[in-house]
């Protein structure tokens, strides 16, 4: 078994003629948390869209679990074991919490025990059971994020892509959300996340990737990136070296 669950190899992609990713490369270790950081416009979210088949990769390749998956359809990637929690609010506001969860299992095989998996997720996150019949629009920001993560887990993915999990959440909820990610890692799920809150994210991560203008600048252990003075400079003397 290879040690890396995902390899992004020299990919180029963007919107129209404008490329955002200009030869981005990095690896995601199996069973670990890897965080992608970088200044605005570095291509952090774009790289997720490219990996998940939402944005065409024009050059380079994406390898997941030993097989090439470049430009595969999201549906196929879900079936192979990648799930993606996009940035912002991603619930169907007028459906109930339970139905929102259920839709996360759309790509599940016929023999998958969806009801059983929902049951065990509700066991783990009691809020989901308590609010199962409520419209998703009535949930707080933190509850919605929890619902999104739980929904992403329904297919029992090998790799989870999470874009900005902490955005819009209170410090307490950020802590809780990061705690859930650590639990997932302990259960063997590999996690790749993008975070604005670089310092906090790197503190719970095993590895870090620093992107700038669509290229990989640094790829190293999370601790090494936290200690790297160049990273502080990249953020204009900001978050990492500071606080």
């Amino acid at each position, binding site marked *: 078994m290879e040690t890396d669950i995902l390899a992004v190899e020299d990919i180029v992609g963007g919107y129209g003629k404008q490329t955002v990713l200009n030869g981005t490369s990095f690896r995601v270790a199996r069973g670990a948390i890897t965080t992608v950081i970088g200044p605005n416009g570095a291509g952090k979210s774009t790289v997720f869209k490219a990996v*998940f088949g939402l944005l065409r990769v024009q050059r380079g390749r994406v390898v997941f679990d030993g097989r090439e998956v470049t430009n595969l359809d999201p*549906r196929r990637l*879900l*079936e192979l074991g990648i799930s993606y929690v996009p940035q912002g609010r*991603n619930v169907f*506001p007028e459906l109930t919490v339970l139905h929102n969860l259920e*839709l996360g299992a*759309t790509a599940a095989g016929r023999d998958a025990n969806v009801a059983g998996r929902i049951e065990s997720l509700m066991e783990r996150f009691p809020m989901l059971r308590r609010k199962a019949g409520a419209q998703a629009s009535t949930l707080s920001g933190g509850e919605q994020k929890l619902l999104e993560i739980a*929904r992403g887990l329904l297919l029992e993915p090998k790799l989870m892509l999470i874009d900005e999990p902490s955005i819009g959440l209170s410090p307490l909820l950020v802590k809780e959300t990061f705690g859930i990610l650590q639990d997932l890692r302990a259960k063997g799920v590999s996690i790749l996340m993008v975070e604005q809150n670089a310092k906090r994210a790197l503190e719970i991560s095993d590895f870090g990737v620093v992107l700038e203008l669509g290229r990989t600048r640094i790829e190293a252990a999370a601790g090494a990136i936290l200690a790297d003075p160049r990273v502080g400079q990249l953020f204009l003397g900001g978050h990492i070296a500071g606080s």
Partner: protein
Amino acid sequence: MLLWQTSQTINFAQGEFVMLPAFFVLAAMKFGGLSFPMAMLAGFAVSLLVLGLLFKRLVVEPVIRHGVLPLVISTIALAILMKEGVKEFYAADAQPFPAAWATTNLQVAGMVVSVQNLVIIAVAALAVAALQYFLAGTRTGRSMQATAQNPALARVLGIPVGRMVLYTFLINAGLVALASFLVSPIYLAKFTNGETLGLVAFVAAIVGGFNQVRGAIAGGLLLGVVDNFVAAYLSAQYRAAIPLFLLIAVILLRPQGLLGRVEERTV
């Protein structure tokens, strides 16, 4: 309205969509020599094909890429095309359309009630109930709602978005065909039928709330009641102005509609 939700399609030809299926049936009888029940089936099938599939493939999909406004204009053009097409190639005068049920009147508690109206109400109520059940009670229905509420997210979860949108167009086509078969025996089949129907339906939807099926039904009822009261107690001459008057009042006072919810727009 369903179309608006799933595909951001505002169809200004919706009234003509109700006018046309009756002519499919009449044409099937006149030129195809089919019996009335067979012609209804054929008309229904042709409606699904033309007003569902072809409308989506040939009009909505190529045009929506350029924005909602070009699509709106295209549906207005389509309305004119359908109207004039029927006038040129079938008939300019009102055509009798057979009713699939008894047309007698009943005496109920001293009032005269036409069986026909009862049938219309019953079938319409049944259709709405079936639609609501399908949308809320089945997985496919909920996937359609999900596609309507957040298509980008639906795609991320592996919901076959394209197929859900197609279902929406087919359901819409099926419903307009049904409506056509229900109202044509009363109003007769005429190429101009779409004008009033489209206006009334559109106003009903806005008055009730554009994003709620319940709202549109309530809006339709309100419109009907107000319309008849004005005709009875004020003057029938003002009748045609009623929908427009209601429309202006609602837009001024309650722009989201009576039962509608305010749509959040994210930037």
